């Protein structure tokens, strides 16, 4: 079977063992990313969205389930992956303050992947290549002499993105790339990311908690809650017709600026409760404790994913 999905995740589980019990950070999720698509993964903190990214890039070994890159099974740790594969999948972390080494110059930071993967062997060519990469993300050439603490947070994130792009990857995982930044800088970075995606036909797994941002960036969206995906649809379909009670709560909680946006929100669903601890999750639907439309069955049985419209999946007993 021809596979034009760059990434397919099937029944992925990642459990962590802690003193209090087993944390089911990711508890059986399925999704797929088409080539050249921006796939958005949204969720509150503690919902397991970063764990998904870390597992895909190979920082964690999945407890169970399958991750497929095109037709290649990659359900293993990064040390067991080939260099070729590592080149193709890159990650950008949330906080550029901690994800790039403060003791290395920008040149050294960007040079490292070029050296490791043997992309540019010659030292002189490498300097040129680094300059070229910096130019690609809109940073001046003389930044190669600077250190991370000499530049602003937004520029640091640009360096982090530049580093991820040095190996010419096909899939980039963006773990909340702009949540630590001001909106004015966020706008610049997002525009650049979208431009790069078009120029190089990249695929993104874009993780964020900001639904308004997602609306403008992603072509399809999955909403995660407590280790499971509760709704998955194309962005336009999703915002036109949000189905899951959690999604409705999430959307109605967004503070917006204009009247037109206000109209797009579902009727006010009063947000209540907090995301429960992922240790010892009670049986039934994980959202039961906060749901405004809960029924008896929800406390006993965990709902399964059903397809409501074409490509619009929801996991809730309301839609059987």
């Amino acid at each position, binding site marked *: 079977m021809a596979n034009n999905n760059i990434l397919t995740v099937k029944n992925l589980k990642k459990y962590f063992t802690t003193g209090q019990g087993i944390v089911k950070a990711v508890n059986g999720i399925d999704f797929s990313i088409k080539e050249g698509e921006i796939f958005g993964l949204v969720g*509150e*903190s503690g919902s397991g969205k970063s764990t998904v990214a870390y597992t895909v890039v190979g920082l964690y070994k999945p407890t169970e389930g399958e991750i497929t890159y095109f037709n290649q099974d990659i359900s293993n740790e990064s040390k067991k992956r080939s260099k070729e594969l590592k080149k193709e999948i890159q990650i950008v972390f949330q906080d550029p303050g901690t994800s790039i080494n403060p003791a290395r110059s920008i040149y050294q930071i960007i040079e490292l992947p070029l050296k490791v993967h043997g992309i540019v062997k010659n030292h002189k060519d490498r300097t040129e290549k680094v300059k070229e990469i910096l130019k690609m993300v809109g940073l001046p050439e003389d930044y190669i002499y600077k250190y991370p603490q000499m530049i*602003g947070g*937004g520029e640091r994130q640009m360096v982090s993105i530049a580093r991820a792009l040095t190996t010419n990857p096909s899939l980039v995982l963006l773990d909340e790339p702009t949540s630590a930044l*001001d*909106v*004015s*800088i*966020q*706008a*610049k970075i*997002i*525009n650049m990311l979208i431009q790069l995606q078009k120029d190089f036909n990249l695929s993104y797994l874009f993780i964020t*908690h*900001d*639904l*308004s*941002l997602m*609306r*403008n*960036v992603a072509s399809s969206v999955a909403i995660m809650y407590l280790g499971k995906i509760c709704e998955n649809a194309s*962005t*336009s379909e999703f*915002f036109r017709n949000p189905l899951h009670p959690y999604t409705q*709560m*999430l959307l109605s*909680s*967004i*503070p*917006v*600026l*204009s009247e*037109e*946006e206000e109209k*797009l*929100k579902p009727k006010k669903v009063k*947000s*209540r409760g*907090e*995301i429960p601890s992922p240790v010892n999750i009670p049986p039934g639907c994980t959202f039961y404790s906060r749901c405004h439309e809960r029924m008896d069955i929800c406390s006993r049985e965990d709902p399964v994913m059903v397809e409501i419209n074409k490509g619009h999946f929801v996991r809730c007993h309301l839609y059987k």
Partner: protein
Amino acid sequence: MKGPLIEIKDLNLHFKVFAAFLKVLNGVNFTVGRKEKVGLIGETGCGKTTTMRAIMRILGMTTARITKGEILFKGRDILKMNEAEVRRMRRKEISMIFQDPTAALNPVFSIGSQIKNIIKYLDRMEKKLTRAEIKTIAVEALREVMLPDPERILESYPIQLSGGMRQRVCIAMALLSNLDLLIADEPGTSLDVTIKDQIIRLLEDLVNKKGISVILISHALGMVKDITERTYVMYAGSMVEVAKTVELFTNPLHPYSQDLIAAVPKLTGEGISQGIPGHIPEYINPPPGCRFHPRCSYVMPICKVKKPPFFKVRENHQVMCWLFKKGGNQVGK
């Protein structure tokens, strides 16, 4: 008593670093009326928190120098108060909620002992309360912020509570005294969107019920729009625009306000603006004239030499920009 609750007039503040001065606040003018809810927006590093710290007088006084201006609180100049008066003011009249509730609570004391200490300190001047009375007040305060099972929470430590619960505890602590002004410095930033929504609604209910003035600092412009009546936009140490909140968000006039508001991603999904070119200036050697001129797309020769005053464009709408010298709406949106 008449007059505004807080009035800051032409406040200039420098921080001393090594041999240089960071000229951070550059003529701040700011007023908050009684029972008024005021928003304050701007990028990181614009001096929003510094202004609030100046009001509370919790700036490090060894490095911070107020070179000019006054902060009138109920007609009295905070900068001229002695230590005892400032302590009284912080205790009874102004309170602050911080961005990160985890850092605002002491991790080694239980919530109960922290709250009870505040209550003891509050009533030291007046009558002496018994332990049982103090506990009743503490439980009542926690119940007011909708925390379930307050008795249990009194015995827990901050680490045992979630971020949302910690922020509720901070709100309960801030509202213990019968205060006049609450400064909320990005109260929901570290929380998730659904939790933020809960916290903000709670805060709004409580301040409306108690008739407290609020200064809300936030990057979440939508939140500012939902709650406040009037909003200030701050850039590089000056207030550059002030208007009724609804008017500011529908018809921003200052080029900076326009760019800032346009940079917020919209739910309608019409794409994202280009953001604002450049970044906040260095405070050691800030640009002369209007500090926004290096980033401004409407820059004129006068902007580079002279700082604009506030021009009144409409009733309740003032903007610090030379484009509005003759009044009227000159910048097309």
